[in-house]
């Protein structure tokens, strides 16, 4: 058993994460100037949600439905701030019409989507929307990037943040279910 050294609360928050890559992702988003985050929770985003909640410089909004976060991101941009939306693939379906605002207004949008229904999925109800996620996003004008590993994810998120906030693009990073791991239930 390792002897535990005293740690700062922030360091403790990072090292105790269920998803260790979330700490790097949090730093990438912070360095991209993200000050607002909204989410419908997903187990795959749990650590990142905790890190943002503990971050005094970021405003977090819990949503009743994912399209609310799209509208919030547009409002934040009107006011000069950068907002990121965390959701799972089933929530993408809830966003579609609101995404027309981002397309027609050329509003920056960064969505981090944890995928369901594609890898070791136990719940058949997750499969149809999982299958429709990428085509639906592409159809409404959101560009998608797939992250298969933690290293991929951190690199892609940094690139996606630049494309969104600097080049006024609408971007979804799809985080593969294989990377998140098998859901224990």
């Amino acid at each position, binding site marked *: 058993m390792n002897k535990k050294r005293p740690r700062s609360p922030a360091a403790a928050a990072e090292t105790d994460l269920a998803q260790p890559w979330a700490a790097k992702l949090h730093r990438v988003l912070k360095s991209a100037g993200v000050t607002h985050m909204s989410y419908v929770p997903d187990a795959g985003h749990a650590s990142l949600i905790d890190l943002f909640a503990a971050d005094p410089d970021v405003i977090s909004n819990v949503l009743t439905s994912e399209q609310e976060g799209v*509208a919030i991101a547009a409002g*934040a941009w009107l006011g000069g701030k950068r*907002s990121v939306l965390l959701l799972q693939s089933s929530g993408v379906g809830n966003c579609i019409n609101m995404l*027309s605002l981002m397309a*027609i207004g*050329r509003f920056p949008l960064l969505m981090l989507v944890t995928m369901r229904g594609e890898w070791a999925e136990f719940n058949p109800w997750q499969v149809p929307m999982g299958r429709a996620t990428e085509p639906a996003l592409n159809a409404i004008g959101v560009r998608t990037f797939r992250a298969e590993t933690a290293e991929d994810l951190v690199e892609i998120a940094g690139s996606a943040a630049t494309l969104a906030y600097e080049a006024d693009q609408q971007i979804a990073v799809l985080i593969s279910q294989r990377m998140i791991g098998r859901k224990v239930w």
Partner: protein
Amino acid sequence: MALDRRAAVAALLKDRGDLLIVSGLGSPTYDVHAASDSDANYYLWGAMGGAALIGLGLAQAQPQRHVLAITGDGEQLMGLGGLATIAVAKPKNLSIVVIDSGHFAETGMQRSHTGCGLDLAAVAAACGFADTAVAADMAAVESLRKKLHRPAEGPRLFVLKVAVENPPRSLPPRDAVFLKNRFRAHLGLSVS
């Protein structure tokens, strides 16, 4: 008794000062434009259900400014869950005004849920809004106008009960990028 929507919105926005306004699609966008165009208005022509939440994002991004989302009953009903999100976020600088005709005015005046008795001010109060009210005469509109320029304890939602009518359209630009850049320039932000 029901308000004339154009007169009520014009009275509400009289001496609006530095209010930032987001208007919901359809008649509320025309009402706000008819009251007077401003660089500080962001008019929606779509994104139904999003007006109050765009207001929330804006209010959180600009905590020193007061944000007013003016929308219709149908638009707010589509974003009913957003009232819960706004109540939990507790912005002190966001007010929502619902211009409530009880009907979907754009699509042929079909009765809406408020026309069937649903009380949006009561919904907002139950969600935890700091202040809610229903105005059905011009004196009540004037008292809401004064409230908008006083500090609030949290989010507010006010309902204006208006007559079922379709006044001539007053059309702002439909170019969402132009409106975005105009709005951001008004706030001194880059418009790249």
